[in-house]
């Protein structure tokens, strides 16, 4: 819906047809613009890649072809020279085997003259003494053979080998194969045979197997060119300053003894050393020739590419034209639609995406038509409804205003209520604090009381112990009296014993008197006995004295005991008095203890009471705080209610305004919808 609206509003300009015309071109151009660069780039890249690949491949191929060609040439030269050398060596071996005399040697050599077309003079020889041996028919004129190059070279070997090239007496460049004839003769002979460079030149100049390639032969010993297509260069020497880049380059290569294939001033140059010689075969080909094919290939590729570009652009144009054709019909319909004409009929011909698009546009036009007529209908109804709502909203505005006032009053009342509740809460909190203090104090009193109970209990226990101690003292005193009484009895017995001893002493004294009397009667004979009797009498007297003393002492002891007994009795009496006093004190302590105990119980009960009061006070405080909070909430609520009432008032004002606006809008809408042509269909 929204998209379709947008599209219709977007294209509903005065210059719609022009824009449409431009668009038709643009699709084609756009396709071309986006596809052609890609096609171009692809073709160019393909051409580049293939040219680069072809270049390097061609180069490689040319190089290997050149190398193959030069190897072949080199092998040919070698084989040709080897063939001749073997021919000469066979002749020399024959000479060595035959060991001919001078004349015989001349005959022998004559037999071979003309047998080898490459060496028309055949084999010839010279001795150190200066004798020259030449076969008959040979055209050779040598004045001083020992000074010739071939002779000197020949002296350096027995096996025949080629020496350096030189100009012979006829002014022709030749190379000589020479070697010592080992025939055992004293006059040392050297056999030699010449081959002209013509044959080698033919191999070098015409034996090139690669088209457009050229070759030349150089002696690396002295850098002399032995064969070259340009005959003026033959027998000249290579120099680094040569204007020919190949000749200069080859000079460098020989100097470095590096015979790898190389590039020199636009030429590919290959080298091959000819075995058993100091010769270097050089073969070269201009890169342009190698690349000629590559250039042609690139040209063809470019042409094909260009053709492809043209064909592709034509194809794209044709295809786009065909594809776009049905779209232009649809575009016309859309243009009509954009100018508000929904009376059009869309014809559908094709069955592809574009056909489906036309079909959908047709459907769209139908549904738009229906929709527009219902919108028209609806907008009129809407206008009436919005007028109604305008009235309703005005009523609502009034109602909400009065509600706002009521709300403000309520708010005021709640405000006061909140203040009152807050006061209650504060008082309850204070009460709670006081009760808490009281509880703390009574707890302290309870503790002190408990301490007092403990102390009094201890005092009573001490008292009991004291009473027990008193009893102990009394018993001890009684025992003491008993003991003392026993002592008194014992001293009475002692007195009796002492009296008895006194009696014994008296009798003894009497006996001694009797004895002394008897002794005196006995006269002299009883004299001794008289002495004893006297002594016994003394002893008895002493005993009587002691008994008297003892009696006196015992009397003293008895007196003392009597004193002790009277004193013990006195202390027993005082102990008895003390015990009675202690018992009284104990009774008093018990009384005190019981009194304190009951006081403590009372205090405990008081504490429980206080705790209960404390809890209640706390509850009261909490409840009154909650109440205060609730009151605040109520206050807040009533405040917001006031605000809401105010905003309702404002809103109802807005609603009133909006419904007024709505009424106007619906009028405008009705006007717009009536612009669309739909009634034609209806009529």
């Amino acid at each position, binding site marked *: 819906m929204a998209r379709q609206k947008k599209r219709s509003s977007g294209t509903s300009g005065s210059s719609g047809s022009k824009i449409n015309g431009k668009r038709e071109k643009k699709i084609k151009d756009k396709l071309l613009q986006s596809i052609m660069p890609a096609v171009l780039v692809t073709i160019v890249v393909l051409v580049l890649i293939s040219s680069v690949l072809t270049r390097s491949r061609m180069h490689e191929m040319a190089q290997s072809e050149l190398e193959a060609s030069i190897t072949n040439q080199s092998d040919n030269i070698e084989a040709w020279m080897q063939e001749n050398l073997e021919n000469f060596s066979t002749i020399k071996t024959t000479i060595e085997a035959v060991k001919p005399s001078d004349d015989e040697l001349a005959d022998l050599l004559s037999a071979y003259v003309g047998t080898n077309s490459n060496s028309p003079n055949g084999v010839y020889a010279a001795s*150190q003494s200066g004798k020259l041996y030449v076969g008959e028919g040979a055209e050779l004129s040598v004045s001083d053979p020992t000074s010739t190059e071939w002779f000197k070279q020949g*002296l*350096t*070997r*027995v096996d025949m080998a080629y020496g350096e090239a030189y100009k012979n007496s006829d002014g022709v460049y030749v190379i000589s194969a020479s070697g*010592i004839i080992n025939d055992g003769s*004293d006059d*040392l002979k050297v056999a030699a045979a010449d081959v002209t460079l013509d044959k080698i030149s033919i191999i070098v100049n015409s034996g090139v197997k690669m088209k457009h390639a050229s070759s030349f032969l150089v002696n690396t010993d002295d850098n002399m060119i032995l064969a070259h297509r340009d005959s003026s260069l033959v027998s000249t020497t290579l120099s680094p300053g040569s204007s020919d880049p190949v000749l200069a380059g080859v000079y460098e290569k020989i100097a470095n*003894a590096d015979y790898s294939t190389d590039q020199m001033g636009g030429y590919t140059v290959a080298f091959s050393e000819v075995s058993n010689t100091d010769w270097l075969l050089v073969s070269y080909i201009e890169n342009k020739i190698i690349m000629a094919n590559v250039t042609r290939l690139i040209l063809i590729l470019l042409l094909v590419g260009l053709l492809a570009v043209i064909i592709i652009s034509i194809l794209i144009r044709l295809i786009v034209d065909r594809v776009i054709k049905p779209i232009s019909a649809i575009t016309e319909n859309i243009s009509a639609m954009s100018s508000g004409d929904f009376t059009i009929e869309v014809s559908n011909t094709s069955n592809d995406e574009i056909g489906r698009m036309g079909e959908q546009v047709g459907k769209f036009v139908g549904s738009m038509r229906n929709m527009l007529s219902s919108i028209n209908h609806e907008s009129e109804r809407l206008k009436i409804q919005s007028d109604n709502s305008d009235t309703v909203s005005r009523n609502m505005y009034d109602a909400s205003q009065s509600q706002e006032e009521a709300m403000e009053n309520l708010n005021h009342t709640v405000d006061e209520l909140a203040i009152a509740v807050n006061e209650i809460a504060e008082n309850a909190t204070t009460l709670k604090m006081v009760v808490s203090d009281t509880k703390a104090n009574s707890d302290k009193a309870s503790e002190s009381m408990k301490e007092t109970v403990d102390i009094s209990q201890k005092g009573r226990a001490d008292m009991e112990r004291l009473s027990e101690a008193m009893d102990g003292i009394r018993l001890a005193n009684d025992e003491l009296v008993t003991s003392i009484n026993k002592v008194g009895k014992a001293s009475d017995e002692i007195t009796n014993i002492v009296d008895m001893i006194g009696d014994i002493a008296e009798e003894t004294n009497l006996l001694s008197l009797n004895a002394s009397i008897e002794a005196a009667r006995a006269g002299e004979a009883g004299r001794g006995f008289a002495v004893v009797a006297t002594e016994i009498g003394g002893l008895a007297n002493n005993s009587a004295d002691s008994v008297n003393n003892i009696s006196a002492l015992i009397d003293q002891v008895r007196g003392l005991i009597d004193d002790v007994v009277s004193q013990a009795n006195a202390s027993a009496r005082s102990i008895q008095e003390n015990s009675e006093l202690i018992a009284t004190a104990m009774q008093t302590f018990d009384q005190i203890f019981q009194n304190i105990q009951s006081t403590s119980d009372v205090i405990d009960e008081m504490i429980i009471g206080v705790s209960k009061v404390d809890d209640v006070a706390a509850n009261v405080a909490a409840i009154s705080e909650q109440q205060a909070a609730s009151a605040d909430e109520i206050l807040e609520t009533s405040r917001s209610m006031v605000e809401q009432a105010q905003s309702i008032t404002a809103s109802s004002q807005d609603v009133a305004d909006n419904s007024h606006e709505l009424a106007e809008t619906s009028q405008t809408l009705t006007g717009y919808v009536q612009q669309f042509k739909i009634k034609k269909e209806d009529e």
Partner: protein
Amino acid sequence: MRNITKKTGFLLAIALIAVCVFVGCGDKGGSGAGLKIMYVTNTLDDYRTLLQEATISTASTEGVTLDVQEGTSSVDDQVNQIKSAVSGGYDAIICLMSDSSTALQLEAVAGDLPIVFVNSMPSEDQLDADKYMYVGSQERDAGTFQAEYVWDKLGKPSSLNALIFMGEPGHSGTIGRTSAVKDYFKDNGVNADFVFCDYGNWSDEIAADKFNIFLRTKQDFDAVFCNNDTMAIGIVKEMKKHGFDTSKIPVVGVDATAAGCQSIVDGGMQFTAYQSAAGQGEMGIKTAIALATKGSAKGLEGLNDEGTIVWVPFEPVTASNVKDYQ
């Protein structure tokens, strides 16, 4: 900033560890641990025995399991040995070919297995960098050493007359050694006149015969270059017979054979160039390890520009150091 520094540090640490791990793997001795290499060789002679012993000892220090096959001159046997290396899960083959022209056939049998040819050189175009390689000594070196010694010995004259006794025609030793001698003098601006230059076919007898023929040309000579010791010994014998003083006219050879060294000790030959069997054996194993582990011989000493050949230098042997080679 700090974060970046931390990150950088972390990355650097990782990089460092990685580098350490890689370098550690590549550089340390015993890098061939766990590798299995087959050694195929020609029938043993003195030189090949030395080469084989050097190969075995290098293999053991590098921690390589080296399986030495019995030396054979038969191409078929060598082909079979290489076939068994392919089926036996070897990592590389070191091969002293019985015939240097069979390289292509051996390579075809080996397939993906790298072959390091030693001592006997196949044609260069049959070598493949990092795959089918050659370890050997550059023939030219021997000639260059000879010429260098002789020129110094003669007091660097501006011209000299010299004799060259070459090996067999077409042999790589013949061509390389001879041309190096000639080139040395040419490069140093010495006018060297090779008054006699012929093939001695490695033989002392042929060399002696040709020397006698040369003597009949009655030319003076300052030095005798021989492509090998055997020919040099033959020449020394002839020279002594004809009263030439070999201490004044240097005779030089190549190979440092036992007889050659003895000749130097006895005052016959003056110089020989030693083709290091130890060096070739060592580099053979090292090249095989490099190919088996890294797939590349890069970084090996003596590797040529094409990466196909590892050159083991010849060593000059004179009276002063001949003891080390006897």
